[in-house]
């Protein structure tokens, strides 16, 4: 260690001053990116800031600053600082935790701020046993050593809590590592495996399927390695017209066959905040697209012959097997979403039926030749965000560790108790002393409680 300390580079990165400086710089520079909107087009920047300032923003990478070389470099230096600084100190902490506290001289105990001397009305060896038993009973398992001037008992708790800080520091590194592993830029440019980690999206019209998605940044196609079908999409509304749920019913297919998912079912209901993960790829409900077409399902209730077809409005469909013809005459919409549809239907016997039907509601059509069931639903495409982020596991682990580490670092401490049994002025005395590396006030209470308890016991 001493040799390393002489290395100026090492010393530079081991310094806490650097850490304070970096925290300050990170905080201040981060502000820029919240004032200047990120990732707009060049024209937009020129419009907002004028050509000169816009050029400056570009040169300094402030238009995409959190991915810029200088911001990432800051984070790198920050990580190195954190690693070196912790490596520098951990050996010292290990020394402290492993230290043989029984070598502590009685003079030092007499100077400790938290201490108390009691008179024991017993011979020394009996007193030692009594004190050791008492402390053990309170959860302080002592070790003891014979000294020149008496017997020293020592017990400690929470030595490991001195590592709480380092749990926090490593958690930050693990989170940053997770961010790198999950970064699509890293997957493309360093690993040259764009399907290792990506973010993209795909629109799937109802009844259709896809085996690829479009990557966000590059716009390139990425193969999923399986197929996802959208069976159905719908929006539910509150009574005041606000959207309540965006819901897609999807099926995962491998080799053309539906695959049962975790819950054993082959279909899954995707909602906002209820994504679907399959083979490391997660699908999020993120948008939708209404079409001017309709999905029509008609069934001849007598024969059971059925047909599902996507048709545009105002087109006459001839359904040979079912012995009927139908079409959509008219529709009523609210914005882009169709509420009611006017249907025309005939089995070529008597006058055709025409009637209004609510979107996606079933109608029974009684005709001279047979009875038909019919639903007409506006065609939608569901818009899914698709993400593969193998780093999330690291990030979440890091987050958990950080909370744990913060708790340990802030609220737990390394506590030590010494009991020195010795003879003085012809009496056996016990000197209790203690220390805690944090929360000294709390420890003092524990200590006083312990000593008072002992005093009562020996009467």
């Amino acid at each position, binding site marked *: 260690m001493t040799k390393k300390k002489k290395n100026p580079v090492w010393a530079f990165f081991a310094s806490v001053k650097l850490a304070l400086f970096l*925290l300050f710089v990170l905080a201040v520079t981060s502000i820029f990116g*919240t004032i200047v909107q990120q990732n707009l087009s060049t024209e937009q920047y020129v419009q907002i800031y004028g050509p000169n300032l816009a050029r400056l923003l570009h040169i300094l990478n402030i238009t995409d600053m959190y991915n810029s070389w200088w911001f990432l470099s800051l984070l790198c230096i920050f990580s190195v600082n954190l690693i070196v600084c912790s490596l520098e100190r951990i050996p010292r902490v290990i020394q402290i935790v492993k230290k043989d506290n029984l070598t502590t001289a009685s003079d030092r105990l007499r100077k400790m701020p938290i201490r108390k001397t009691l008179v024991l009305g017993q011979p020394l060896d009996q007193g030692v046993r009594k004190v050791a038993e008492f402390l053990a009973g309170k959860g302080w398992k002592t070790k003891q050593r014979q000294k020149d001037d008496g017997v020293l008992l020592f017990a400690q708790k929470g030595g490991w809590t001195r590592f709480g800080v380092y749990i926090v520091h490593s958690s930050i590194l693990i989170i940053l590592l997770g961010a790198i592993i999950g970064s699509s830029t890293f997957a493309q440019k360093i690993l040259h495996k764009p399907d290792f980690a990506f973010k993209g999206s795909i629109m799937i019209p109802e009844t259709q399927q896809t085996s690829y998605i479009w990557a966000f940044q590059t716009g390139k196609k990425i193969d999923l390695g399986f197929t996802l079908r959208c069976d159905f999409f719908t929006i539910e509304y509150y009574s005041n017209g606000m959207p*309540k749920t965006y819901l897609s019913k999807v099926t995962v297919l491998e080799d053309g066959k539906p695959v049962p998912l975790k819950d054993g079912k082959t279909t899954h209901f995707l909602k906002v*905040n209820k*994504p679907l993960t399959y083979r490391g790829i997660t699908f999020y409900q993120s948008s939708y697209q209404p079409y001017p077409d309709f999905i029509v399902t008609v069934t001849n209730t007598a024969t059971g012959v059925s047909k599902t077809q996507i048709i545009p409005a105002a087109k006459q469909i001839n359904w040979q097997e079912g012995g009927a013809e139908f079409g959509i005459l008219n529709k009523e919409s609210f914005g882009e979403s169709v509420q009611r549809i006017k249907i025309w239907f005939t089995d070529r016997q008597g006058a055709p039926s025409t009637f209004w039907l609510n979107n996606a509601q079933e109608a029974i059509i009684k005709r001279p030749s047979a009875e038909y069931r019919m639903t007409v639903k506006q065609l939608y495409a569901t818009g899914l965000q698709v993400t593969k982020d193998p780093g999330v596991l690291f990030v979440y682990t890091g987050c958990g560790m950080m909370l744990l580490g913060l708790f340990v670092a*802030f609220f737990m401490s390394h506590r030590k108790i010494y009991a020195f049994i010795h003879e003085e002025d012809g009496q056996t005395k016990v000197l209790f002393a203690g220390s805690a590396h944090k929360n000294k006030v709390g420890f003092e209470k524990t200590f006083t409680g312990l000593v008072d308890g002992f005093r009562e016991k020996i009467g």
Partner: protein
Amino acid sequence: MNSSQLFGITTLSYLLSSAFYIGLLVFKNKKVGTIGLILAIFGVVVQTAALGMRWQESYTLGIGHAPLTNMYESLVFFSWCTTLFYIFLEFKYKARVVGAFVMPFAVAAMAYASFAKSISQQISPLIPALQSNWLIAHVITCFIGYGAFAVAGGLGMMYLIKKSAVTKGKQQDSLAASLPELKIIDDLIHKTIVFGFMWLSAGIITGAVWANEAWGTYWSWDPKETWSIITWFVYASTLHARFTRGWSGSRIAWLAIIGFISVFFTYFGVNFLLSGLHSYGSG
């Protein structure tokens, strides 16, 4: 009796409580301080009932959700956290005049929530992105942290006032003399920041988990997220300056105030001055 009337009573009792605490500061009459405390406790009890009632009212409207989802509700929750945290502090550390520096924050939040034109008090249904238990966890953790930081900021101001009186040799002034010892305030600032930092960290983490569940990105550097991490950096620096460089006293008091300004900006500034994902907070 409905929840808004109860919130009105809360605002009034916090206002009176602040007045009595300031009275304590000026007149050094213990009884005045006790009344301030009783009013704060009364206010917080009424407010708790009101929060429960608003929650229940949302179910009556058929859109049941915890009252933590828009600007109005978050302000109310902020004042609740701040007051509760302060009462806890008063019982634990007996530093009563601190109330004069903290209760005004609680009043300001309640008054702003109730009277600002831009803030709707309606219980409105949740759009799909907000229907998440992580959101609830996010709001609760963040606001416990913010409450603590508000208290720390108040303590910071108190420290500086006392300090300037001491250096000018005017500690006999009634105002400065009624403030606790500098060392005690310093210690309280530190403890409060530690507590707040823990919750802010949890708040940022639960927010990231929520974003990941809803959008597939746990961090997107949107202005609100960025400001929360700026705040986190400020308090991390404060803690390190204290632990490793031995900073204390005025410098930490200033950092407590700067930290709270950063909190304030994260919470309000971003909604009103910058644009981003958290736009739900502006309505």
